């Protein structure tokens, strides 16, 4: 059985495969990469490098975009 880890994606707890990359998460959630910014544990991530970022247990990912506001 594949080892699982727990991460938080936009405040929601997710169980994912141990060797998942940040790119896998973006792909799985159909995130339009050009329209978002990504933070990993409060550090901004270079979107071009997400294929090389392996996720660890308890990682916190925030994916944000622009919405209507004043």
């Amino acid at each position, binding site marked *: 059985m594949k080892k699982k880890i727990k991460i938080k994606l936009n*405040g929601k707890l997710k169980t994912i495969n141990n060797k998942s990359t940040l790119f896998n998460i973006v792909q799985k959630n159909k995130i*339009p990469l050009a329209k978002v*910014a990504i933070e990993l544990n409060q550090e901004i991530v270079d979107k071009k490098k997400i294929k090389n970022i392996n996720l660890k247990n308890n990682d916190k990912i925030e994916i944000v975009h622009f919405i209507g*506001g004043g």
Partner: protein
Amino acid sequence: MKKDKFIISKKNFSSRLIVGTGKYKSMHECAKAIKLSGAEIVTVAVRRVNITDKKKPLLMDYIDPKKITYLPNTAGCFNSKEALRTLRLAREIGGWKLVKLEVLGDKKNLFPEMIETLKSTEILTKEGFKVMVYCNDDPLMAKRLENSGACAIMPLAAPIGSGLGIINEINIKIIRKQTKLPLIIDAGLGQASDAAIAMELGCDGVLVNTAIAKAKKPFQMALAFKNAVIAGRQSYLSGRIKKTLYGNPSSPKSGII
């Protein structure tokens, strides 16, 4: 008439009306109101992508950032740390350097927290941001923001969303006289005439959200604000007559039958 330029951070705009994109019933309504308002700059908020509902419409699908300047805003931030985090993320989305800083101090009146605002302005400017700053209508604080590198001063007319119009015209006039930076009234306008007054006081522009989005007829109000800003600006540039206590007839006194 000489070309009347509205320049923010070396970029030339023809509309002096900036509109917010919040509080509309739908993205469609928001996009149409913006079009009618003639605004070339819109404020936008940075929030989490909805992971569970992927079909939710995206702002960028309705308002093209290549045609309309997105002005990322830190609405909802109550300290410098949150505001800096928000704007750094905004820049990461696609290179946005022109931003609106808004650090609030109180959930009830939504007045700006000026100490944190000042601190954030300094840091952001050093990081290469062009910071348009939401502030109170205090001329001293406006001066300090200017000295900290703000690229536009944006005093409130009244509390955000209150619709009260310009409460302290004197302070706005004083700020106008002391600064060469773009002066933009931000927050608290209720109707089109409020925008005209702001422009007649010599402001370079106004930022409106609630007054358009929550009007019974938002499209009509968007158009009204567009016209009011143009009218107010022209009135300001025309040089108004002096006020007098007594009447002064408009028709010649000679030749009366």
